[in-house]
């Protein structure tokens, strides 16, 4: 994480492959006014680093991810902020930018073999020696018998294998940025652990910039370098992953306390009162104020901006930092 400037904006480092600042996505329901789905999102993706977007259902993680590659659902538009790519990096799904999803069905076509799907996305100059490159790709994602997998249709592979095949497909176009949206959510924990290890390894080997989308703070702690926690369309706290040891934002604190512990040292969990507001019913001021144990009058009236937190990272909360009460 780069030091944030005084108003919390993350500066894009010279080494960044993708820098997004002030991103905002609007939803335009027919005949109605723009609804903000996400806003004021700053991201800085760097080679060999994993940046996590984490938060509860509906907070806007997937929409943020989709906006980077022009994959927004119908009725939505990326209409605020800007995205800058490093020179030479193309912003196009399948090339500079690749996606993997929770459901391999979104990437893998059931009627073609894995091999023919991978061949399809290989850069032109590699199509000649395609066989070798494809076998190498499959070995990279942990298959010991590439030939068999290349000849298989997706339904002939288990969930974990499909996830690996999807990764191979994503890597085939030699992307610089890999966006992984809940890549392990549907998998058993033992398979999840293997895929996470694989992701971390690929990120290092291929010098990939990874944007990891997940609702699971444990997964973030396992492999992310930087983390942005989102709530109701905004990033509320961001910084190096160690911030999860000692977060500042009341929502992030609440999330961590709500998790049951493996050592069983908790007879009662502290949940957060209420639930996440749906789109269109997000409150004014700080969006977390109806659920926040620290809320004061100012929280209902004015939205807090991201402010710098120590040397690195930033937090959006009136109670935190100078003049605050937390």
């Amino acid at each position, binding site marked *: 994480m780069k030091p944030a400037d005084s108003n919390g904006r993350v500066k894009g480092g010279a080494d960044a492959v993708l820098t997004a600042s002030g991103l905002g996505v609007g939803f335009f329901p027919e005949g109605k006014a723009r609804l903000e789905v996400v806003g004021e999102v700053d991201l800085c993706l760097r080679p060999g680093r994993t940046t996590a977007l984490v938060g509860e259902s509906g907070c806007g993680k997937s929409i943020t991810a989709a906006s980077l590659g022009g994959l927004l659902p119908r009725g939505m538009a990326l209409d605020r902020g800007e995205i800058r790519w490093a020179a030479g990096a193309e912003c196009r799904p399948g090339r500079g930018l690749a996606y993997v999803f929770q459901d391999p069905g979104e990437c893998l076509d059931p009627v073609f073999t894995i091999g023919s799907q991978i061949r399809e996305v290989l850069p032109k100059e590699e199509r000649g020696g395609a066989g070798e490159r494809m076998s190498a790709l499959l070995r990279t994602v942990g298959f010991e018998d590439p030939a068999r997998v290349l000849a298989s249709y997706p339904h002939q592979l288990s969930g974990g294998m499909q996830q690996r095949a999807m990764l191979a497909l994503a890597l085939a176009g030699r992307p610089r940025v890999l966006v992984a949206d809940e890549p392990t959510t549907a998998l058993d*924990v033992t398979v999840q652990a293997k895929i996470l290890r694989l992701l971390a390894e690929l990120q290092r080997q291929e010098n990939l910039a990874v944007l990891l989308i997940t609702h699971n703070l444990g997964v973030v702690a396992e492999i992310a370098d930087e983390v942005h926690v989102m709530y109701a369309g905004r990033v509320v706290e961001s910084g190096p*992953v160690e911030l999860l040891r000692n977060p500042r934002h009341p929502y992030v604190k609440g999330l961590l306390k709500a998790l049951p512990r493996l050592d069983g040292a908790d007879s009662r969990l*502290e949940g957060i009162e209420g639930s996440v507001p749906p789109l269109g019913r997000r409150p004014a001021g700080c969006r977390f104020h109806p659920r926040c144990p620290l809320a004061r009058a100012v929280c209902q009236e004015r939205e807090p901006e991201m402010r710098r937190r120590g040397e690195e990272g930033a937090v959006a909360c009136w109670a935190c930092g100078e003049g605050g009460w937390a």
Partner: protein
Amino acid sequence: MSGPLMNVEDLRVAYRAGRRKVEAVKGVSFEVGRGKCLGVVGESGSGKSSLARAVLGLEAEVSGRVEFDGQDVLSLKRAGRLAFRRRAQMVFQDPIGSLNPRMKAGAALAEVLRVHGLAKTRAEAAAQAAHWLETVGMDAAYAGRFPHELSGGQRQRVNLARALCVGAEFLVADEPVSALDVSVQAQILNLLKSLQENRGITWMLIGHDLAVMRHMADDVIVMKAGEVVERGPAADVLSRPAHPYTRELLASAPNVARALERRSRRGTV
């Protein structure tokens, strides 16, 4: 009242796939003490959901013995089965799938109450429905909402109210919180625990999240490929697992504190 509420011996569940017979549960035995929570841990395909349905008498090809409060569940006659259905209920992962989308929460509860002859008049049913909503921590005003007007956590509460209102003492919950947000999951887990403590509900909790199991279960059984590979008090099994498979499960569980600890030792954060 003595002895365990549920006693299962050498339970086997099979499915037919064409001519082949596949055994999903291969001779499992356990008991659940009154007012206790038994956790069933395992990954997909381990047979835990088949086991859950079988103990409620909802599977066709079953052998072995399932005893509920001293009664043999697998050979119950019609009247006995109805009474058993009231006392032992299932709670599912996806509450939206198990609620009628065209029925308001209050009406759904009232219907169950009347089907089981527990409320004579409409007014009586409505009053009881309101009471049960409050029991699961919801304002009675939610009786007027349709399932799609409720959050995931609220729908799971309605689901629990529906099981409790007919007098269930034994609840089999198959991944009851895995579709919920963490902040809401904590509320529901607290509710499940208070139902155990304050109403003496006996639970069989099926799940894959070991931290949730550690929090909820008194005893656990760990299943793999239809068999129990390890069993014992949750505090022992989940802190000092003896079986390599349980160890692998435990090592694979993503955990914030443990991951940060490990990475800072390695210098990768």
